[in-house]
Structures are given as structure tokens and as C-alpha cells.
């Protein structure tokens, strides 16, 4: 069981990350939150301080940074370590955007930017912090991927490509850090009711609430699970989807 007493959350104002932060704050954790938009980060920090009984704002801290900007990573990580000390238990990577596939189809630049925000920028951050975890020989690194990364579909394969790349990177990192007793957790949520999916028709049993997914994430991080499909039913769905032979799959309108 990993301790989750001092945790860094990156991309903290996303609905899923917010729900994770709340759950951890309620259990008295020390948190360092990073988000791009200060106007949204401040009220969240305030909320977490109330939930975490941290009236003096000593345990729940944060900073603003654009994590798509790889040059900012070193500074963000230094600030996190200054805020929480050297014994950071866990890091959760949760930033990302849901690109519009049609816009990507129409623009190479949009495609590459989407892959950078959801893929390479996350990999850059992981590459930056991995040596520290390796050296300390404990802790957990978790990152939010997506079931979309399991198979490319015409409706969102740019997003899927970035998340698939991230998943493969995490797989390798998991293998590397295994020998330093660091857990690397790949989170693969299915459909979640968040502002990111606002425009979708979200009726139906497959749509989960961010709080449900957050509980799953915290549990997977505590247990140091390798890959967590959330909710678990997506493991079954994606297994079936992966098994469809390509010559059939390419004919489907998915």
C-alpha cells in the first residue's frame, strides 16, 4: 500500500483531478496543485483548505503554470518539492485537452499541438521526475490516459494517438522503476461527465461521474496497480474492441 499523504497534482482544475484532490484533502493529505488558470486554481485551493481543515493554508498549496510548456517543468517540480519537502508520495498527471478531430483533419499544426498537449508534454514531465523517484526508491507516479489510446478510431484518433503513446511510455517507465520500488499507474477512464465532454450526448449507463472515477484513481494509486480501467467495465469493452480484426474494424463507423 502506498501512502498518499503528500501528493502533487498537475492539471488540477480538470474535473477528475479536482475530485481526486478533494478526496485526498478530506483524508488530511498535503497537496501541491498545478493549473494553468489562476482564476480557477485559487477557488479550488480555497475549497480544498476548507475540506482539509487547513485554515492557515500550510498544507494545501499550488502554483500556476502551463504544463504544455516543457520549459516550465523544472521550475514546477522544484516548487512542488519546496512546498512538500523531499518525501513526495505521489504525482498525478492530469492535464490534457480533447481536440476536435475534424479540426485536426484540417490542420497539421492542430494535430501536432494536440499530440503535444496530451502526449509529449506529459512524457517530458515524466522523464524529468523519473530520476528523482528512482533515487528515492519509493512512491507512485500516476497518469491519466484514456481508453481512446487502446485503438485508433476515425472519430478521435489524434487524441487516441497521444494517449496511446503516453501509455506505452508509462509501460516502459513502469518496467524501469519496478527495480526501484516505484509504482507507475496508468489510468484509463472511459466516458466521464466533465466539462470536457459537455457537447456529447451523455445519457446512458456507460457515463461515469468524476467522483466515481476519482475514487478508483485513489484506490489504484494506493495499491500501485499497473493499469486501471475506470470504471472496470471498460476493461471488458476494450478487450473486445482490441480483438476486432483490423480488416473489419476499418469498415466500422466508430
Amino acid at each position, binding site marked *: 500500500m502506498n501512502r498518499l499523504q503528500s501528493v502533487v497534482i498537475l492539471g488540477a482544475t480538470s474535473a477528475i483531478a479536482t475530485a481526486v484532490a478533494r478526496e485526498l484533502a478530506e483524508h488530511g493529505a498535503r497537496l501541491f496543485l498545478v493549473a494553468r488558470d489562476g482564476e*480557477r486554481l485559487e*477557488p*479550488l485551493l*480555497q475549497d480544498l483548505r*476548507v475540506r482539509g*481543515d487547513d485554515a492557515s493554508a500550510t498544507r494545501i498549496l499550488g502554483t500556476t503554470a502551463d504544463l504544455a510548456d516543457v520549459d516550465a517543468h523544472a521550475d514546477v517540480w522544484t516548487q512542488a518539492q519546496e512546498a512538500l519537502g523531499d518525501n513526495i508520495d505521489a504525482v498525478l498527471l492530469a492535464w490534457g485537452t480533447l481536440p476536435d478531430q475534424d479540426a485536426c483533419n484540417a490542420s497539421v499544426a492542430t494535430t501536432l499541438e494536440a499530440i503535444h498537449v496530451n502526449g509529449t508534454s506529459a512524457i517530458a514531465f515524466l522523464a524529468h521526475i523519473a530520476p528523482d523517484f528512482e533515487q528515492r526508491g519509493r512512491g507512485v507516479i500516476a497518469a491519466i490516459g484514456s481508453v481512446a489510446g487502446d485503438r485508433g478510431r476515425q472519430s478521435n484518433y489524434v487524441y487516441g494517438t497521444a494517449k496511446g503513446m503516453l501509455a506505452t511510455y508509462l509501460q516502459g517507465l513502469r518496467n524501469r522503476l519496478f527495480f526501484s520500488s516505484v509504482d507507475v499507474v496508468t489510468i484509463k477512464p472511459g466516458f466521464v461527465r466533465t466539462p470536457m465532454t*459537455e457537447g456529447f450526448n451523455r445519457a446512458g449507463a456507460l457515463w461515469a461521474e468524476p467522483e466515481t472515477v476519482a475514487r478508483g484513481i485513489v484506490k489504484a494509486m494506493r495499491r500501485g496497480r499497473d493499469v486501471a480501467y475506470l470504471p472496470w467495465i471498460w476493461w471488458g469493452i476494450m478487450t473486445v474492441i482490441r480483438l476486432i480484426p483490423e480488416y473489419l474494424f476499418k469498415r466500422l463507423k466508430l
Partner: protein
Amino acid sequence: MTTSWNRIPRVAHAAEVTLNRRGQPLPGASHPLLAYGLGRSYGDVCLNPGGSLLHTRDLDRFIAFDPDTGRITAEAGLTLDDLLRFAVPRGWFVPVVPGTRFVTLGGAVANDVHGKNHHHAGSFGEHVRAMTLRRSNGECLEVTPDDTPDWFAATVGGLGLTGLIETVTLQLVPVRTPWMRAWSQRFDSLDEFWELDARAEREWPYTVAWIDCLNPGPRGEVGRGIYSGARHATTAPARSQYREPRRAIPLDPPVSLVNRVTLRLFNQLYYRQSVHPTARAVHHLPWLFPLDAIRHWNRIYGYKGFYQYQCVLPPHAQKDGMQALLDGVAASGQGSFLAVLKRFGDRAGPGMLSFPRPGATLALDFPERGNETEHLFRRLDHIVQEAGGALYPAKDARMSPDLFRSGFPRWEEFASFVDPEFSSGFWRRVTK
């Protein structure tokens, strides 16, 4: 499609926007705006056909809490469920809760909701110490009962029409444990109810009665039921683990499961349930929110939905009036699942349109059966209006403008506080 809890009416909105931070400018209105919390109202008070709905569920952040005084400030989309989860372990409780905890602070203010402890604690609005109100012109008003009493009286019970409530400051009440002490007792007629109530209300801060409005009591008149009272316990029972059961109605049955046969059966069973004349320990969740244990229970009425009919009758007319209402329901043969009868305390709500007021309130649920149902409602309306009573806007999809005006005589005064860009299906209907 966004509906209210009873799924009547089914209407289309021009736009639905989820607000996610305070201070966010409201969408420019080419059509009227209205805030929507968790849609636990029945009818069209939270609907805005052809207009825009502003979903507040992401405005759910805590802002400040003083553990010494129990004063809490939070965004208006925070649910009472979240608030109770936060407050109870810290020894505080929400002063007034309706029969479900899945409502938002904003929704609780806008309907000035009441609980089973009205005779003891008044309505929700009495415990609100401050609010911020965003108007469509971009202004943000700081509303308090002392400094801006007129805006306060308009916004509490203001049916979401004075603007968007962004934050609410609420005074919580201290409790020692999550547990309550509760008792219950059968009664055979309304006369017995009034007697029981007169004795119980002084000693028990929470009281309520369920009435079987299908089956007559031994003396032949409709009005038998079960009376219960409760208070917060000072100590927890020895084995004090409680886990709320999680059941849900998984999907919409094609037709209403509530019909004459199931109703009669249910009411018989309900009346026969075991009662506990001496007080025992119960957890606050099942006692205060019995229906919350079954998620989506509104689905039992099928796709067509149902109505709730809730009225209040003033003290001088309450006894005869309640009997007349129950007799009317029995005679119609339509029956209600369970009727809830509760005597309000002797204070009017703080809002110009507050529903709670001295007298007694009765709430009835009916499956939608078209003309037959409307016919019954007209009969009940007549009794209510004759008695000088009112219907609860939060539970209404059909009252006439005339009945609204007689039940809420301050409506014209209120109208001058309505935000010019805000409106609702309810408001357009009753001010027609």
C-alpha cells in the same frame, strides 16, 4: 432533455450552459435565463422552455468555514449531501433539510425549503446569513438580511428569478452525533393526528405524519396513518456503524408501476409496518431522507411522469380543509402513494414568496392520467382557495394565475425585483 423530478412538463431549451466559476459573466441573453440546480423541483419552476438554463452543479466549492461558530460559506451549487458529509463529522448539521439531500444550496434558498422541523427551526431562508447575487447586467449584489432586507426577502423563496445566486453563507446548528432518537405511532383518524401533533410538537423538533389516503380507518373516514417524531441524539448507540443501502430503479418501465392495485397494497403494507412508540436510535439518513436510499425512484411512474400536489392551509381552516382534501382524494379513487401531513410552526417564511406559513401542509403524489388527474386537482384547488391556502410553487406544474395570486399576495411587490433577463416556465404561466 433536462426535466424536473416528476418529468412534467417535457420542454426544450434554447441553450444549456454549465457554469464553473464564480464571477463568470452570464451568457448574453437573446432569450431568458434561469438557474438549474439538481432539478429536484417538480414541475416548471426550474424549467425555462425556449430559454437558457444555467447549470450550477459545478459551482460546488467551499469558501470558508468557522469551526467555532458553525458558519459556512460555499458556492450555490454545493449539495446538501456534500454539506452534510462535511459538517456532521465536525459536529454540525444543516438547520433545515427537505425530504431529499440531493438539492443544491441555491435551490434550497430559491424555494425557501422547509423540513420536518419547521415548527422548531422555520424555513431554510431563516438560517441564511448572506448571499451573493449575480444580475444579468453584470452587477454582483451582496445580499444580507440586515443590510439589504428587501433583496433578501425577494431572493429567499424568489424561485430563481432575481438572478443567479453565486454563494450562500449559512449558519449550521451543533449536533453531537450523526444519530437521532425517533419514535412512531399509528393513528386512526385525522382527529387523532391533531391530538398527537399538539402533544408531540413541543417536545420533538422533527415531526411528520404519513397518511394512507385510500383506506378508511375503523370509524369510516379517511385519515389513518403513522405519526413520527425525532430529535438529534446526544450519544451514539453502542453498535453505531451505518451504511446506507444503495438501490436504484435501473430504467424506465414502459408504464407506471403505480396503479390502483399496487397503491392499495403498498398503503396496506405501509400502515402495517412496525411502529416504535418508545424512542430508539436511528441514523439521520434513513430517518430524514427515506427516499434517497432508492436512486431514481421517480422512474416507477414511467416515462409519462407524475404530479405532486402540495398545499398549505391556514390554522383556522386546517382541520376541516385537510379532511375535505383527503375525502376528495378518496372519492376520486385515484389515491396517492403516500400523503405527507405536517403542521408548520407559527412563523411565515422570510421571503416575499415563501411557501411555509402558519397552518398545515399536505403533499400528495399522483401518476399522470390526463383529464382525470386535472379534474381531481381542480377539486382540490377549490378547497385550498376557499380555505385561504396556497400551493407550493416548487411542486407545481399547473396552478392557475388566480390561485397563485391569492396564495402569494406579495407577488406584485416581488415582481419589481425580478431580473429583466431571468424568467421561468412557472413565472410566465402564473403571471399570464
